[in-house]
């Protein structure tokens, strides 16, 4: 559905996107994750034919964005970073205008308008002026605008930014629902958003892709590592020394005070050394109170990938 090959974009001499390639299949919901200035908006603007790439090729819904922009535009719904709303219009007249320039008319337009008002829960404000809407409703009208012509592909640039927690959840629910019959790429720097809505994550930093996987795979073990947490009743120095000696354990850190402490252990995935960890604690006569597999959080992975270490050229 979306095929990006060796995409680069320069603003003057500044390279905002450098040689990015990815593929998104029909029906996928993909999160485009990255810190500020990573190049997310730039990439999305190229996907939606807002501006041309400096180099590389991009095809969306089977059409090249450079050779066939009209065909792409007809099939893509785009929610820009700032919803493109005309404050002096009512919700209904605005959506009807958008529908018309997307090529709808007559009964079909009216039908789709009603459908999209219902789907984005904006029917109650249909005759309000956009200028008077709350931020949350403006965001929804922005989404409605992207949906009105029933596009196959949705490109959503930070769809939940500036919303309150309740509305964030509602918009995520809506995106999940839309994901059932659309191909979606959404950008964000909020990590839970990705685990909540996306089947796959592309992490981009400084214009380059640094990782690409499912949220589960990313969190459970980066590069063959695994992480467990144990709670032990025993002298912490000795426990630390004993644990570090076990073969396959990469790193141990302690946490908490008193005689009962929690230890975070990073270990190799193969072979399974959890038994050896348990045996070592028990054989030393300490109390093993709890053991669980914890996995790296998406935040940690994100930071690990986007803060220099090995990423810089």
């Amino acid at each position, binding site marked *: 559905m979306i095929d990006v090959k060796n995409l680069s974009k320069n*603003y003057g001499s500044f390279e905002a996107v450098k040689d990015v390639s990815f593929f998104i299949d029909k029906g996928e919901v993909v999160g485009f994750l990255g810190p500020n200035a990573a190049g997310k908006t*730039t990439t999305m*603007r190229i996907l*939606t*034919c*807002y*501006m*041309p790439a400096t180099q590389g090729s991009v095809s969306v819904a089977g059409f090249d964005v450079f050779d066939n922009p*009209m065909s792409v*535009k*007809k099939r*893509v719904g*785009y929610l*820009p*970073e*700032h*919803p*493109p*709303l*005309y*404050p*002096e*219009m009512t919700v209904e*007249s605005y959506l009807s*205008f*958008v529908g*018309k*320039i*997307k*090529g709808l008319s007559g009964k079909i337009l009216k039908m789709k308008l009603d459908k999209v008002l219902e789907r984005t829960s904006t029917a109650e404000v249909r005759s309000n002026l956009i200028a008077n809407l709350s931020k949350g409703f403006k965001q929804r009208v922005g989404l409605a*605008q992207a949906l009105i012509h029933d596009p196959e592909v949705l490109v959503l640039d930070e769809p939940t930014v500036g919303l309150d927690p309740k509305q964030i959840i509602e918009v995520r629910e809506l995106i999940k629902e839309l994901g059932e019959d659309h191909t979606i790429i959404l950008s964000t720097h909020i990590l839970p958003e990705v685990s909540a809505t996306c089947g796959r994550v592309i992490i981009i930093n400084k214009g380059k892709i640094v990782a690409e996987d499912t949220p589960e795979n990313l969190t459970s073990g980066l590069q063959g590592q695994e992480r467990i947490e144990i709670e032990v009743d025993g002298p912490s120095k000795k426990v630390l020394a004993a644990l570090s000696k076990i073969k396959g354990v990469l790193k141990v850190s302690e946490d908490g005070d008193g005689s009962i402490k929690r230890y975070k252990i990073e270990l190799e995935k193969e072979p399974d050394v959890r038994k050896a960890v348990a045996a070592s604690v028990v054989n030393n006569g300490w109390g093993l109170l709890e053991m669980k597999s914890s996995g790296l959080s998406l935040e940690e992975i994100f930071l690990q990938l986007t803060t220099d270490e090995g990423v810089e050229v």
Partner: protein
Amino acid sequence: MRNSYHIYMRELRSYFVSPIAYVVIALFLAISGIFFYLLLQSFIQMSFRMMMQAQQFQMQVPAMNINQMVIRSLFLNMSIITLFMLPMITMKLFSEEKRSGTIELLFTSPITNWEIVIGKFFAALTVYIAMILGTVSYVSVLFIYGNPELMPVISGYLGLILMGAMTVAIGGLISALTENQIIAAVGCFGTMMILWFVGFASGFVGPELGAIIKYLSVMEHFTDFAKGVIDSSHMVFYLSFAFFSLFLTYQAVESAKWRG
């Protein structure tokens, strides 16, 4: 071209839901109304004096030309007043969409940049025409109480419309070059001032350059229309200037994409 119509309608509606159009039109009608009143007043006084003189000296009352004295002056005055009004009509055409980000909607919709440029041009032109047609009521007063020639009135309005088309196109172009409405308005006003009064400079330079400068003077081309002369060379001047500005606007809109 159906998309141009959608752009046109949206733009036109937005003029009339915001106070801008009303304020500009009311201001224009008030100012040109004052000029009309003063012109008419002095015409009446003058004809009265003529009549008294004629009676005194037992002469025939000389024919006073209302076309020359009122209508021609009215059109010349109106053409200058529109200079102050038009920048307020054109300033937001593109700059506002750029500033608010709605341009992203237009650029990512299946419409061409020409359709956007044309739709916006005609919307602003329509507001302008509505504005000058408000003065038909003044002129019709003359037709009710007298019998002036019709031709100079028709050519005067035609001249105003052509000159307006050119100014709207230039104003739109400048609006496409900036995100700031004030700069767009001031830029349009300044450009038009130069094009209006450049004619005065023609006397100070050599004959060749003088002729070119004279040709560029908007005022030079308007005077004939106010006199009741419809000369196709003047029409060509205004229209080609308008087309050229629209073409440049199209180029600017295209390249705005490159700058992101």
